[in-house]
């Protein structure tokens, strides 16, 4: 039982990792209708930015805030310069642009910061909360921040005019344009927000998995899975999906098939879920007009 509980908690901890990046993926999907393959690498790059600032002597929270701000701006700039030209292109061209961004960020990070792993500080205390052995303070804190971000995003998209405009722009560009929304800028803002959420995710993930240029390759995969299970257009679904994938993966690996196949089984389960619920557990159902 002790071991079982332990697996569950460690699953929740890694699930929190998946959830935070999945949230960034959902963000960009909500505001642009694309799945950004480069999301993980962008988050990784932001984390290196924060690392450089802290390394240069800046206090943690200042570095945190600055990184989020810079990432937001970078996201907007990337959308304006790199994504804009393919805005009307077929979806496959956009995917290719994402792949290009992924390899560029990865390669440049390796070039500038080398591939040796670096420690990234955590704002939370070193000692686990209440002296428990199941979950570290950082992991708990990371889950807390992820949930906080989720609530803020929910309120933003639900109740602020800007949030509503962004969603409208993504869902129906033409009508939005007719009702006076500047669709282009909404898309750019969406990119900025996603990059900022990604930066937060990166800074929460790095203390756990260590900072290196490939730190996101594994996480991104699971974040995709989380977003799929939860429904790619539902922030709540993505976060829940993250925890679900984290826990399931651990339990399957530890008790059912062994670690050699845990990734495969997790993926099979996801496809299984999709077959019965093609838009994920909390996804919007497509209705297409003829």
């Amino acid at each position, binding site marked *: 039982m002790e071991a079982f509980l332990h697996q569950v908690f460690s699953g929740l901890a890694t699930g929190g990792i998946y959830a935070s990046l999945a949230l960034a993926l959902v963000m960009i999907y909500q505001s642009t209708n694309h*799945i950004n393959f480069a999301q993980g690498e962008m988050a990784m790059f932001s984390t290196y930015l924060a690392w450089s600032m802290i390394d240069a002597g800046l206090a943690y929270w200042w570095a945190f805030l600055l990184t989020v701000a810079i990432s937001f701006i970078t996201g907007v700039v990337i959308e304006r310069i790199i994504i804009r030209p393919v805005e009307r292109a*077929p979806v*496959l061209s956009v995917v290719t642009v994402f*792949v290009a*961004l992924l390899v560029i960020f990865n*390669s440049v990070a390796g*070039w500038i910061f080398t591939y040796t792993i670096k420690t990234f500080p955590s704002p939370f205390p070193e000692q686990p909360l209440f002296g428990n052995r199941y979950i570290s303070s950082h992991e708990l804190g990371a889950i807390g921040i992820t949930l906080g971000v989720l609530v803020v995003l929910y309120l933003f998209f639900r109740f602020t005019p800007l949030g509503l405009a962004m969603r409208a722009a993504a869902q129906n560009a033409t009508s939005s344009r007719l009702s006076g929304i500047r669709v282009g800028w909404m898309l750019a803002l969406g990119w900025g927000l996603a990059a900022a959420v990604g930066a937060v995710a990166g800074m929460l993930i790095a203390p756990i998995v260590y900072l290196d240029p490939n730190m996101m390759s594994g996480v991104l995969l699971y974040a995709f899975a989380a977003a799929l299970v939860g429904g790619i257009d539902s922030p709540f679904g993505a976060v829940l999906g993250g925890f679900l994938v984290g826990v399931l993966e651990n339990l399957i690996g530890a008790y059912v098939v062994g670690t050699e196949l845990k990734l495969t089984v997790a993926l099979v389960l996801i496809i299984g879920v999709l077959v019965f619920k093609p838009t994920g557990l909390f996804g919007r159902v497509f209705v297409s007009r003829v």
Partner: protein
Amino acid sequence: MFNRQIAKSPNRQIAGLAVLLALAIALPFLVSNYRVFQLNMVLVYAIVLLGLNILTGFNGQISLGHGAFYAIGAYVAAILMDHFGWPYWTTLPAAGVVCFAFGFLFGLPALRLRGHYLALATFALAVAMPQLLKYKHVEQWTGGVQGIVIVKPDAPFGLKITPDQWLYLFTLAILVVMFVVGWNLLRGRTGRAIVAIRDHPMAAEAMGVNIALYKTLTFGVSALYTGVAGALGAIVVQFVAPDSFTAGLSINFLVGIVIGGVGSISGAFYGALFIQFVPNFADQISKAAPWAIYGVFLLAFVYLMPGGVAGFVRLAWLRIRGVRTRANARSALSEMTEPRRTP
């Protein structure tokens, strides 16, 4: 293919293709064996890209998992040659059949998925493949993490050519067969149904097209092409291992059809040339960050040739032929290369 009105007259077209084929046959005797090997890989990739294009370009089902079918084809060939002593050429149909079955089966759940969901589900397949290949219960067949080394076939009938030249010609022959079959498939009734499903699924259904059957069959055929190419690739490289078939390979294939031209048959060749040669070129420019250079090339191609290289070539050709107005050329082009955006 779909814009007959601007197509060249059939005779001239056939003559042009014949010249190209003659050049392709002569090529291995003009360059070094190492180049022959590279060109051989180009042919192999071209078959994959045609297969993927049938599914993604013509039928509109995005697959980020074709590396998995390529791997299955390669392993079928390697296992049959290594464990059962089959001659190399007999492994191709086997690889094709096995991959068709896998593709068809995967196509069934894929029916329920669309757009991004399908892309990611197929991506999951690609990611899981290396892990499956080294699973302990199949290890005795797949060679586990060590992979399988296979013997390179010599030229038959006492032909006085090198094994590289022979394999190139062999691959070329297979490629010609696959392309002629693919061409006929896409041009006929079946092809129109496949494309109709991409563009107007409901209308297609109303016209009596059995969408489910066509979609799964297309998946199967696409996997078959990829599997045959995988078997050829294994024979050419003489080695299979889980590390050869990472998720990156699947992404490369998708990049290949976008660069070559989505929904274009000739695009398969341009795409294959890109994925074979551009990484090496990037490496020559910078040892510090070759991937960054590769990424820049990707961006440049997508921006400068939105219809892929095939679209660009066609556009250039139309200009030369005197289709003066830009709009005309564009509409003629887009009809061919651009699938509708997924809803």
